């Protein structure tokens, strides 16, 4: 079930028997998978398969009905994500995420967006505002460091010259990259990306692949990726998990998934011939002029 066991404990993130119900609706039904350091694990599946719900459980927006979400943090040991409050997951467990429909702070500048991601650190440095209000050196230095880190990610995402723009005024592709940069500024051990390539043109998609590979290889963190764009998924993922109607129907390397009959069926469905109702048949014969 789980990925090859490491010497020290299990994989970076392991999801076991995750189930999520909304009233009578079962959005996720007993899904288990795992993801590892320096690996990109893609979660794919048709619309409504429950992919985003998995992310919402992982990042604390929903409390799972059943299931265990273990993060094997390199520095902090085992953490049970389902027991943490929403904001603590990024703050304490260092799990970052992006959103399907980009969620930046649109009226704030690009740089501010990145500084905000380092909030907790800066908050401590500012002595919970007291030192900051008194204008102490300590806070000033910490802020400088935060700007340095922000600048590094601005460089990586090609946004440096637009650092002082309002985030809401950036073009769409830039906003996507900024959201990733913001997530990286919390210095995560696990990054969850919800359809990062949605709405990007092929060139931007290729750049995104480049960026994600860079994050994986240089920063050696785990990435979870929800994506519909197969050119992204097949090219950069190390492993793929396929969901359909809330169930895991397949898992494996991109090559294994490509030829899996269950996956093909889930995506294409079965075709059936059906007689057209009379009204519709008439509509087809006499199109509206």
């Amino acid at each position, binding site marked *: 079930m789980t990925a090859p066991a490491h010497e020290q404990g299990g994989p970076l993130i392991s999801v076991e028997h995750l189930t999520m119900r*909304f*009233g009578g609706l079962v959005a996720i039904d007993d899904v288990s998978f795992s993801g590892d350091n320096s690996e990109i694990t893609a979660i794919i599946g048709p619309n409504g398969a429950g992919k*985003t719900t998995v992310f*919402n459980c992982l990042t604390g*927006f929903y409390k799972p009905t059943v299931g265990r979400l273990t993060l094997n943090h390199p520095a902090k040991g085992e953490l049970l994500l389902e027991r943490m409050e929403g904001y603590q997951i990024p703050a304490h467990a260092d799990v970052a995420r992006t*959103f399907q429909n980009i969620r930046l702070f649109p009226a704030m500048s690009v740089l501010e967006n990145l500084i905000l991601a380092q909030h907790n650190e800066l908050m401590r440095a500012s002595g919970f505002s007291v030192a900051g209000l008194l204008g102490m050196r300590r806070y000033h230095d910490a802020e400088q460091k935060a700007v340095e880190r922000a600048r590094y990610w601005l460089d990586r995402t090609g946004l440096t010259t637009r650092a002082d723009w309002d985030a809401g005024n950036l073009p769409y592709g830039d906003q996507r990259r900024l959201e990733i940069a913001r997530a990286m500024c919390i210095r995560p051990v696990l990054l969850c990306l919800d359809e990062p390539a949605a709405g990007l043109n092929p060139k931007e998609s290729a750049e995104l692949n480049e960026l994600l590979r860079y994050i994986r290889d240089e920063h050696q963190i785990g990435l979870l990726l929800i994506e519909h764009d197969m050119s992204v998924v097949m090219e950069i993922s190390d492993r793929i998990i396929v969901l359909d109607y809330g169930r895991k129907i397949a898992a494996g390397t991109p090559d294994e998934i490509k030829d899996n009959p269950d996956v093909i069926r889930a995506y294409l469905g079965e075709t059936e011939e059906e007689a057209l109702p009379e009204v519709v048949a008439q509509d087809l014969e006499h199109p509206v002029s």
Partner: protein
Amino acid sequence: MEYFIQQLINGMTLGMIYGLIAIGYTMVYGIIGMINFAHGEIFMIGAFVSIITFLMLGILGVGWMPLAVLIVMIVTMLLTSVYGWALERVAYRPLRNSPRLAALITAIGMSIFLQNYVQLLQGARIKPLQPVIAGGFRFMQESDFVVTLSYLQVFIILLTLILMAVFTLVINKTALGRAQRACQQDLGMAALIGINVDRTISLTFVLGAAMAAVAGLMFLMNYGVIDFYIGFLAGIKAFTAAVLGGIGSLPGAMLGGLLIGLIEGFWSAYFTVEYKDVAAFSILVLVLIFRPTGLLGKPDIEKV
């Protein structure tokens, strides 16, 4: 026991009035997702139009009471609806796609405006009206405490029930009701399939205002005095009723109104009348904290 029954009757009457106002809150919330804070003032305007019409009828010499009440009701509903319509058109329509806070601030501004508009035009003094419907049934004559169910209370309760029935029919059976429910689900989509969204929303405000107008009339007849400030408290209590019943739900609004009326009645009777408003606010806070969807509301799942 007798005292209890009397409070039950009084509380129910009050609850009917709150329920009628609450319908306006709940419908507007259902359709455009904003709190029409100025709705209480629409109620107050209804009460003022009623008192003016009553006085005019008195001057014109319309003495037969049922006819007088009917005329007053029609005139009040008509003229107050214009306010409801204008309110939406002037203050809310331009803000339909703005942040919620902007719309709420507009609503508060409108509420302040209408209050002072009526105060300037009609004066700040309390306006009294002679009882229109007098007399009533008396029960339990033999005990120390005689329970009275006045004809007025019967009238209020019956009229509310009739209005509610008509209203439910409108929402469930007519094209307007269908359009309204469609807009509740998705404004953009409703527009795409050819529903005149602007008109539907306008009509929602008109209907809500008409209900509030009747509530104003009932309030006037029940208490016999009004002033330009009555809309504020009644508005908050009716809003509490709408939230308690589950905002967006019509039966919920009526149920909530009834509960608030009863709570207020019993609270004043058994505890302290001074703190009855505090009781209403406390309920609002408690409901919002522990059951934000109210009694009959649908859960609201956060989309991320």
